[in-house]
């Protein structure tokens, strides 16, 4: 170790005498420079499609057909235009908000209770439930069960109903949410829960006052994972609903053909920016907690 350090320390100072400092800096840091160039290449690839859509949404109509990244003439009216001219747009947006909010809260509620109970109340047969949840992650449940889910919804009279979507939506990420909550509750010391019990708190109070504050990071992950799934769900929504007014915004957007009438390309892009922004903003704010939770919950779980 010390030999290595000496070796490294000696070489640059020797070369300093002979080579011009600038070149030397590059040679010394060549690996770092190449690394950052490659990383930034990937960053640009990740960001470019999003930047393209954003630019599209503020282009004038003739510019939208030209393909240049930077428009010759800006036009910011598309955002107000889509609200005036696409009559179902506010309804679709409200549908999305309604379905997503309900799904996120219901799933989080289920997952918190189940995760807490599986770790700290230790029910008999809990292992079977965990195993069943794990298996359901590997089986293509979402695809195969659609035949029967249509039947259930039909039986409950929930075909073509926005509220009806909530029930299958909750289940989409339920297994992974419970498993995430389970692994973050495992990080809460059992003695703490026992202490609250001895102090006379019932299991519900213990969960609310002692457990929940300690699993904040995991909660953020469950929130975001469920938000992302419910906000962008396609298969169930197209299968279980028929009318544009009951559908969610992304599904309507997926069916829209660009370039015709009310769906001019900049208008489409404006709707896209409106729909994609809430998730990105929420993520940016919760980013620190999200990473911690991801490390605690997903990776170790």
């Amino acid at each position, binding site marked *: 170790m010390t030999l*290595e350090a000496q070796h490294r320390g000696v070489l640059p100072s020797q070369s300093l005498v002979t080579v011009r400092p600038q070149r030397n800096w590059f040679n010394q840091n060549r690996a770092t420079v190449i690394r*950052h160039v*490659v*990383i930034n290449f990937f*960053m640009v690839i*990740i*960001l470019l*499609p*999003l930047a*393209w859509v954003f630019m*599209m949404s503020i282009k004038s109509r003739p510019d*939208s057909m030209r*393909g240049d*990244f930077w428009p010759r003439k800006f036009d910011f009216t598309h955002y107000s235009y889509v609200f005036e001219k696409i009559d179902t747009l506010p309804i679709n947006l409200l549908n999305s908000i309604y379905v997503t909010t309900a799904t996120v809260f*219901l799933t989080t509620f*289920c997952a918190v*209770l*189940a995760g*807490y*109970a599986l770790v700290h109340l230790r029910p008999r047969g*809990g292992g079977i439930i965990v195993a069943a949840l794990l298996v359901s992650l*590997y*089986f*293509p*449940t979402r*695809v*195969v*069960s*659609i*035949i*029967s889910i*249509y039947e*259930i919804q*039909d039986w409950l009279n929930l075909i073509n109903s926005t509220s009806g979507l909530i029930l299958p939506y909750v*289940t989409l990420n*339920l*297994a992974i949410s419970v498993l995430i909550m389970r692994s973050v509750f495992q990080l809460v010391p059992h003695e703490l829960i026992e202490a609250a019990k001895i102090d006379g708190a019932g*299991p519900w109070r213990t969960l609310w006052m002692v457990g929940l504050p300690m699993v904040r990071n995991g909660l953020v992950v469950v929130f975001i994972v469920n938000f*992302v*799934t419910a906000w*962008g*769900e*396609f*298969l169930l929504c*197209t*299968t279980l609903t028929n009318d544009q007014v009951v559908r969610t915004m*992304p599904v309507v*957007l*997926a069916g829209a053909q*660009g370039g015709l009438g009310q769906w001019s*390309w900049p208008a489409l892009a404006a709707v*896209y920016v409106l729909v*994609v922004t809430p*998730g*990105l903003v929420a*993520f*940016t704010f919760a980013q620190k907690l*999200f990473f911690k939770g*991801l490390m605690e919950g997903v*990776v170790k779980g």
Partner: protein
Amino acid sequence: MADTIANRLSARRSQRTARMEGHAVALRQAMSPWWFLVPTLIFFVGYQVYPIFRVLWISFTDFQYLSDQPANWVWFDNYIAAFNDPLMWKSLWRAALFTIMFLPGTIILPLLLAILVDRVTNPRLATFYRVVLLIPAVIPSTLVFVLWKWMYNYQVGPINHVLVDILGLFTLQNAPQWLGGTPLTLPAVAIMEWWWGLGYHTIFFLAGLAAIPKDLPEAARIDGANEWQVFWHVIRPRLAPIMMILVVLRFGTAMAVIDEYLIFGGFNRASPTYTWTIFMYDQAFKLGLWRQGFAAAIGMIGAIAMMFVMVLLLRIFRPKG
């Protein structure tokens, strides 16, 4: 609320004999965790466990939604019909073909990127990279598909704009038709999925790399190992568990892709996107025949085929010793 019900129950019981009381308390203590599991179980059983067994049952009958007749048990008729249909084999092969295209890129690119990002020492830069990496992962699925539908569009899509107007590799007449069931559709979807999973998988690998003690690769370097040897002998074995989970999970998602094919491919039977999932969906909802029994059999065959390979993969990648 459940607590008060339990209290009331035990209050009523306390009027009975003391021995009964003892039983009730024991029962209540055994049952109380289950109150917490009830909401999860309702959804999980109602919308995942029951539907799967229901589909399994349907696959053995001539069940049809629109028919008034009760379904008849037909044993393996639907399965025999499916196995005799060349489209069944073709559609399974198409799903496998997509998986073969998609899997290597979605494992190797993030691994490479993770090794690079892991060495970034500037904490601000490291955080910035991580945030950007996770951006595609928090874009909802349908919005990713819509975004790339526009990327590949031949009128305004930037990909063809670069190929035709900037690089001049193609003219407007022979510009590649990416989507809509052309031979290019599967690679196009695979590239989109790489983009989507790149950041998320990189974060996965970064978590794995963070768990490797820093002096291990350092010691190997002092012993004269080059970077490739350090990666192969020190880092790779320690990332193997994460890689195994990713390979198996992504294999599962790739074999069962359906939304992308519905949006990009349509129901043309000659399209490479007409995989077993679309075949099943077509039979169940689109054709107007509403042959749910046959569709269920297709679904079960597809699911069992891919579960079989997943178990095989788990066995292959199982850590030795």
